[in-house]
């Protein structure tokens, strides 16, 4: 690893994309993720890549659609309202089995909402964003270093399974600064050499490759979707990631992701100091949801607490994952308000963690 730099989360996402060989970035500014575009506008021309500020989020995601079809690694980024605008394009990309990376730095909603951090788009992102039967991979880092590493991982998974992958952050992660290191490897821009399906010119040497999501014959569409779901089953089996701290003997397991997981971990650390048997569980992949890891983490727990910067969305997936085998309670703040570790600790105590 090279020497460490101090980077904003958004900058680390952008630099990591370059280093993953992302040759084309198509974006549109929106707080709190604009630094991604600003950073790439400076860096892309220096490394032989393309930075393009589109006329809208809708245009940007459709540029990604086209670029991904040519087999080149490409990315777009936005924040909550902008992701809503991209939803149609994301569905088309999934329907055409194309790899790409989408970054969502969530802010408060609904509507224009606010510019402060939020996790109220969990349902939207983890359930595919757009219309139709499909999934997209969702990674939820919680440090600036992990944000950088997640982008690399997202590109690899997107290529491996030929589908969109999302790196899901929130305004707090996007804006805060932490030390981060990248390896010293030279930046090599991606090409389509390992993508026999890419529509990048047949050169009269092979049949046309066609990028399409339209199937007018119902049985054919059903068959295509079913094949896709076989891949999803493989992803659900092989690609889940989670981090569990002090869960082995925990009576109360606190489940949280992204920046909220760090707040929850602070509360759990405090609880342990008070002799309360609390544990912290952090899903790193939100799709696929780490069901087995969660069941393992709660095996000795009496109760589960889910903490989110929303009115409670992941809490549903937690209940499903453990099949409601234990009471699941929720604590959250929303609209851009950040739950303080002291508030989370108070909730742990209220749930019977008081010694």
């Amino acid at each position, binding site marked *: 690893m090279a020497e460490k730099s101090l980077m904003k989360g958004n900058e680390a996402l952008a630099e990591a994309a370059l280093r993953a060989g992302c040759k084309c970035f198509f974006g549109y500014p929106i707080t709190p993720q604009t630094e991604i575009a600003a*950073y790439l506008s400076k860096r892309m021309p220096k490394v032989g890549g393309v930075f393009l500020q589109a006329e809208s989020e809708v245009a940007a995601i459709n540029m990604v659609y086209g670029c991904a079809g040519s087999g080149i690694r490409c990315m777009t980024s936005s924040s909550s309202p902008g992701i809503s605008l991209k939803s149609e394009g994301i569905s088309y990309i999934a329907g055409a089995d194309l790899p790409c990376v989408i970054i969502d730095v969530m802010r408060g909603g609904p509507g224009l909402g606010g510019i402060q951090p939020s996790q109220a788009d969990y349902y939207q992102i983890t359930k595919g964003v757009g219309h139709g039967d499909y999934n997209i991979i969702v990674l939820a880092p919680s440090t600036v270093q992990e944000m950088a590493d997640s982008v690399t991982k997202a590109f690899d998974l997107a290529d491996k399974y030929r589908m969109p992958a999302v790196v899901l952050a929130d305004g707090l992660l996007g804006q805060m600064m932490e030390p981060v290191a990248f390896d010293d490897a030279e930046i090599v821009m991606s090409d389509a050499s390992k993508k026999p399906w890419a529509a990048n010119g047949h050169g009269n040497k092979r049949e046309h490759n066609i990028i399409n999501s339209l199937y007018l014959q119902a049985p054919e569409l059903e068959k295509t979707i079913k094949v896709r779901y076989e891949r999803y089953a493989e992803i659900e089996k092989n690609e889940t990631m989670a981090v569990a701290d002090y869960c082995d003997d925990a009576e109360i397991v606190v489940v949280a992701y992204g920046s909220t997981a*760090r707040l929850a*971990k602070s509360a759990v650390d405090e609880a342990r100091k008070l002799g309360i048997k609390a544990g912290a569980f952090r899903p790193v992949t939100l799709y696929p949801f780490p069901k087995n890891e969660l069941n393992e983490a709660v095996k000795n727990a009496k109760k589960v607490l889910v903490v989110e910067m929303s009115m409670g969305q992941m809490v549903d997936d937690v209940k499903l994952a453990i099949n409601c085998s234990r009471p699941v309670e929720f604590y959250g703040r929303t609209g851009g308000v950040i739950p303080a570790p002291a508030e989370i600790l108070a909730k742990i105590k209220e749930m019977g963690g008081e010694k």
Partner: protein
Amino acid sequence: MKNIRKLTVVTGHYGSGKTNFSVNLALDIAASGNRCTIIDLDIVNPYFRTADFGELFKEHDIELLNPVYANTNLDIPSLNIPLQSILQSGSYVVIDVGGDDEGAKALGRFAPTIREFDDTEILYVINKYRYLTKDPEDTAVLMREIQYSAGLLCTGIVNNSSLGTETVTQTVRDSLGYADEVSVKAGLPIRATCAVADAMPDEAPEPYIIHRYVRTLWDNQ
């Protein structure tokens, strides 16, 4: 910091630590018994702003002026700040400017007033550990872009090199040569080397002990 002028303008790269430096400076001015006004001119960054320290400033009788923008319902900042009359009132003034040349644009509106005032210091805050300003030459080029955008010339360098919570003495020590190079390239003196108390190397020129006010909720207090 020695010889603090009546008006200190704090410019620099995004995330170089301008806000934390400005907060320290304002508190020190107030602590030495002087009236101080801090102006948050950051029209770029929506989070981790000077204006977040309103309570702290109130405690120390520091007046905070900030544009009506972030955390309000305005998308475009309104800079309704009577700089001239504040300076005439005799108060010390610290202006925390937004990052890079984009952030410095907001200064342009006040440039004529700042140029006319005779007790002014325009500082350029540098941090070796920021990704795009690791190289002294790039750091000096950015200073020229900021000057061009603001219509003002910098007068001194503040070496604020840090790795956030991971900063130790060696972190700061490793930045001293870098700061010297920037100082030579920019033709400006180093006005301060900033570090928290236990990370300040003995050989640092113009040492300025600072506290970390800008932090996240999970940082150890």
